C-alpha cells in the first residue's frame, strides 16, 4: 500500500532525528563532564606546583639560615662543621638525592640544637635573636609546606587513578605526582609546640 508507506516515512524520520538529538545531547553532556574533570585535574596539578614551589622556598630558607649560623662563629667548631656540611649538601643536592640530603640536614639541626642552652647561646650574641627566630620559623614551616604538598599530591593521585581520567587521558603529559618524603622533625629546643 503506497499511501501507508508515504505516511510512515516522516514518522520514522522523526524518530531517527530525535534519537540523533539525544545522542548529541548525551555526547555534549559527557564532553562537558570530561572537560570539567580535566579542569579539576588541571587545578590540582597547579596546586601541586604551587605547593612544591612553597616547599622548595622553605627548604632553601632553612638551609640558608643553617649555613649562615654555621659560618657565623657562634657555634663551636665541631657543630659548625656538621651543620655546614649538611646545609651545603642540602642546597647542592640533585633532585633524586634531595629527600635524603634534606633529612640529613634535619638530623644535623636536631643534633646541634638539641638543648635549650645552645639556642640561648645563639640568641645571646648580637643579631643572634633574629637568626634563632628565622631558624625556628624555617624548621616550623618546612613540615607545614611538606604536608600541604603531599596533601595535594594525594588528591591528584586519587583523581588520576579514576577510570574516566585514565581512559580519556585527561591528565595529558603531566608526570604522575610523587610525594616528598623526608624526616622533617624539628629540634626540640626550637619548637615547643604540641602536636604536629
Amino acid at each position: 500500500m503506497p499511501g501507508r508507506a508515504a505516511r510512515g516515512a516522516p514518522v520514522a524520520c522523526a524518530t531517527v532525528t530525535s534519537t540523533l538529538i539525544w545522542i548529541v545531547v548525551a555526547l555534549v553532556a559527557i564532553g562537558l563532564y570530561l572537560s570539567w574533570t580535566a579542569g579539576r585535574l588541571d587545578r590540582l596539578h597547579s596546586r601541586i606546583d604551587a605547593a612544591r614551589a612553597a616547599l622548595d622556598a622553605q627548604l632553601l630558607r632553612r638551609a640558608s639560615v643553617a649555613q649562615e649560623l654555621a659560618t657565623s662563629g657562634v657555634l663551636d667548631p665541631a657543630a659548625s662543621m656538621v651543620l655546614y656540611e649538611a646545609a651545603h649538601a642540602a642546597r647542592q643536592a640533585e633532585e633524586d638525592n634531595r629527600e635524603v640530603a634534606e633529612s640529613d640536614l634535619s638530623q644535623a639541626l636536631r643534633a646541634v640544637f638539641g638543648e635549650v642552652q645552645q639556642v640561648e647561646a645563639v640568641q645571646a650574641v648580637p643579631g643572634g635573636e633574629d637568626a634563632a627566630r628565622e631558624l625556628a620559623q624555617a624548621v616550623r614551616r618546612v613540615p607545614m609546606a611538606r604536608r600541604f604538598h603531599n596533601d595535594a599530591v594525594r588528591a591528584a593521585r586519587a583523581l588520576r587513578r579514576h577510570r574516566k581520567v585514565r581512559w580519556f587521558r585527561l591528565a595529558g603529559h603531566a608526570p604522575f605526582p610523587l610525594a616528598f618524603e623526608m624526616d622533617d622533625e624539628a629540634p626540640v629546643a626550637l619548637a615547643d609546640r604540641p602536636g604536629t
Partner: protein
Amino acid sequence: MRIGIVCPYSWDVPGGVQFHIRDLADHLIDLGHDVSVLAPADDDTPLPPYVVSAGRAVPVPYNGSVARLNFGFLSAARVRRWLHDGTFDVIHIHEPASPSLGLLACWAAQGPIVATFHTSNPRSRAMIAAYPILQPALEKIRARIAVSEYARRTLVEHLGGDAVVIPNGVDVDFFAKAEPKAEWQGDTIGFIGRIDEPRKGLPVLMKALPKILAERPGTRLLVAGRGDEEEAVEKLPAELRSRVEFLGMVSDDDKARFLRSVDLYVAPNTGGESFGIILVEAMSAGAPVLASDLDAFAQVLDQGAAGELFANEDADALAASALRLLGDPARRAELRARGSAHVRRFDWSTVGADILSVYETVTDGAAAVAADEPDEPGGLLARLGLVRD
C-alpha cells in the same frame, strides 16, 4: 596581606568557632593585616566593622541536632560578591565540610584557600552521599589546619590527605591578669558550660557532688552558663541544693575573674569535644584543672601533666580526684604553675604566628606559580591530550 575569613555559624549565637574567628581577626588586624569576615548574622545585629553579613542563618535539622546554616541561591550570591569585592590574597574557611557558608565559599573561591577543621564528628551520612559533590570543592583547599591531633586523625580518616595541627588561641594575659573576686573564693569548684546540654557533663558532676560534700561540707559548686537551673539540681538531695550557686551567663571579664577565683575547675564533658578551649582559659587564669579523659582534653592537658584527668562519666572517680585535690594545696599550686607554663603555647602570639605561617606558605607558592606560568594555550584540547607538542 588581604585576608578573607569565612565563619559558618551565626555571629549572633556565641560559640567556640565564632570566638576563635573574632580573636583571630582582632589579632591579625593588630598586626596590620586587612581582614574581612563573612558570617551569617541577623540584619539588626550590631557587627564589628570587619564583619560582613551573609544574611540570616536558617535553622534546619542536620546531623542529629538543629543547626543554623546558610545555603541557597541568595547566600551563594552574597558569597560570590564578597569574594569578588574582597580581592583577597588568601581565604581562610572554617568548617568547610559543613553545608553552610564554608562550603559555598569553597565552591566559589578561586585563589589560595586555607581551611580549619574544628569538629571531629564521625562522618555523617549526608557527607557520604554528598561526597562526589563535596570532593571537587574540598580539593581546592591548599592547606588544612586541624585544631588538635584528635581532629586531625578524624580528618585524615574521613577525607584522606593530611593537615597541620594548630591549636585554638587564647589571650593568656587577659585571664592571667584578671582580678579574683572574694565571693567566688574559698573552697569552690567551678564549672562553665551549658547546663542543659548533657555532653557538657554537669549531670556527672551533680552525681559526684554528694560524695564531695559528705567529706567537705563547706565546699561550694559555682556554675556559670545558660540552662534550666531547677532541672539541673533535681537529682540532688534538697539539703545540698544550697551548696550549688548558679551565675547564669557571665561576661568575658567575669569569666576570667571566675576562673581566677575558683580553687578547682572541673570539666566533666562526656564527648564531642575536639579541643577544649575552656581548659586553656582555666589554665591561663591559673585554675587547677580536673577534666574527663577525652582524647582532646588529654592532649590539651599534656596527657595529665598540666591538669588532672579522671575516667570519663565516672562520678566516683571524679569525686575521689576532686577531694584529693581540694585537700592538697601543694598539689594545686604545682598544677597552677605547670598549667601557666604549658598554656603559653596556646597564646595568640604563638598561634597567630603559626596561622600566618600557613597563609604565607600558601601565598608564596601561589605567587611563584602565577609568576612563571602564564595561561597555558590549548584549553580543552590540550587537556584531552589531543595537542601534539
